[in-house]
């Protein structure tokens, strides 16, 4: 079941300066990640991107996702260094028809004499801001035992101990 992406993520997706990465696994379980500048939000709330290379590892990962119901990850890094993680499933490979034609034409207008293999549609089911500072605060609140003790110790108490000994 899909989730509606937050306004922050929608803004990040629409900004051409945002770095966008799609990652998946191939049929043998091998990971693969690639920059996908064309990643964007669809009117139906799903994500889509233009896959240029038919025989690419990225394309094979997406086929594996739609065939075997495997999760793909999308990572966004904004120009002000905030990052977001989205998890989803490939739900449609658009390879022909009017919608494909529109993207084919748009891609060629933007990139020149290139081909278009597939417009991949990803249905998101999970999202989270992954910016380090935000995640660090969340982590320490949720998992207070998962830290090194030297960070917790009171330095002045250690100094007193040193004097006694």
């Amino acid at each position, binding site marked *: 079941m899909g989730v509606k992406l937050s306004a922050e993520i929608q803004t990040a997706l629409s900004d051409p300066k945002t770095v966008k990465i799609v990652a998946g696994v*191939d*049929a043998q379980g091998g990971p693969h990640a690639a920059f996908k500048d064309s990643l964007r939000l669809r009117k139906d709330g799903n994500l889509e991107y233009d896959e240029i290379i*038919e025989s690419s590892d990225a394309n*094979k990962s997406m*086929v*594996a996702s*739609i*065939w*075997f119901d495997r999760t793909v990850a999308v990572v966004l890094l904004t120009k002000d260094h905030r990052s977001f993680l989205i998890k989803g499933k490939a*739900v*449609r*490979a*658009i*390879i*022909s*028809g*009017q919608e*494909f*034609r529109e*993207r*084919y*034409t748009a891609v*060629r207008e933007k990139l020149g004499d290139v081909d*278009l293999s*597939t417009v991949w549609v990803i249905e998101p089911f999970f999202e989270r801001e992954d910016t380090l500072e935000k995640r660090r605060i969340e982590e320490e609140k949720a998992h207070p035992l998962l830290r090194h003790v030297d960070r917790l110790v009171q330095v002045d108490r250690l100094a007193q101990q040193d004097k006694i000994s």
Partner: protein
Amino acid sequence: MVFDRNWREKELSLFQVIEKYPDVSPFVIIKTDVQRRGVAYSESALRRVDPKRHITQIRSDYFDKEDLSPVSLLMRDGTTIFCEGALGDAPREPYLVDVVDGKIMLTDEGKAVEEVFYWEKPDYYDKRTSNGTPMWQVVSARPQRLTIHPNQFCDFWKDPKQGCKFCVMAATYHSVQKPAMLAVSDIVETVGEAVKEPGRNVCIFLTGGTLKGGINFLDDEVDFYQEILEGISRYFDGKKFPSQLISTAFSQEQLRRLYDNTGLASYTADIEVLDKELFKWICPGKAKEIGYEGWKERLFRAVEVFGPGNVNTGVVSGVELAQPHGFKTENEALASSLAEAETLASHGIAVVGCVWRILKGSIFSRQVAPTLEYYVRFAQGLDRIRRKYGISVDMDNYRRCGNHPDTDLGRI
């Protein structure tokens, strides 16, 4: 094999096959079963057909229709499902295409199976050639391929008992008022119009019936294709373009003529069944004129002309189990057919399987297709062989013919 009305109790179901073969795409398994069993359309599914947007008319050597039902289907992952032609006299119950929760869905026994889409119509389809011929009658369209059937009859059907037993070319021809041979000018003009459409076509494909005549055996067929291909090649400045010809097995000299004078890039001569004795029974005309070993030899020579990966051969998978002369068990049929496919692959020739749709009008119309599991094992076997011998799937991948479950598996 005798048709059993209780077939559901005797075979693994679709969902059982999907569960048993977790490494095989469930989309390809569904496609295979739908092609094996056929489809019917509910009234609500038919109401979703827009004749301005979807392909409903088609003229080909195997299939001719003008009603308002969709020609065929496409799946969410881009897999093509063929639904062309009326099935024979002993079919399993077809899938029902219905509308469920607003989506067009394949259903079986009232359960939704998978969403499908109707094929969209290309720009050229409703236009006419300068001769006044409707272009859809000259070149038919698959989602990404232009399909040309220049000769819609076959010389093997002119002689008694020489036609291939699974074939409906003669029955289709006699059921429709249409010319056997298309005008070359119509074909070239229609292709010229069709290739203007951006992002539509990845292959120009030709096939048709055998023409035995000429100075040398089959020269008439070669001449006909050469004239068409030379006309089309002018659009590509004479360079090779993504294209495929399925013809009778030509001699190397004839193939060299086609390769050297046209932009044709890949070649197929369908051997139909991977067994010498069954070839004689099922394809008597081909067996008499060329022979099983002769057919293979011509395929080997074709690789020398077109190069490895650019030659393959199709089989009507399942006919090897036709009775009374076919294999008696699916295990025997699989072992024998895959061994022969491997022999061909060792010469650089991939075997591609078509799901045997037992069609009305064929001599085999009362035969019974194998189980779904058989098709899955066969497709998996052909895919493994192709990978083992490093034979490219490009010339016949899922975007082109779309009728081969084994090449669909080559996507990952």
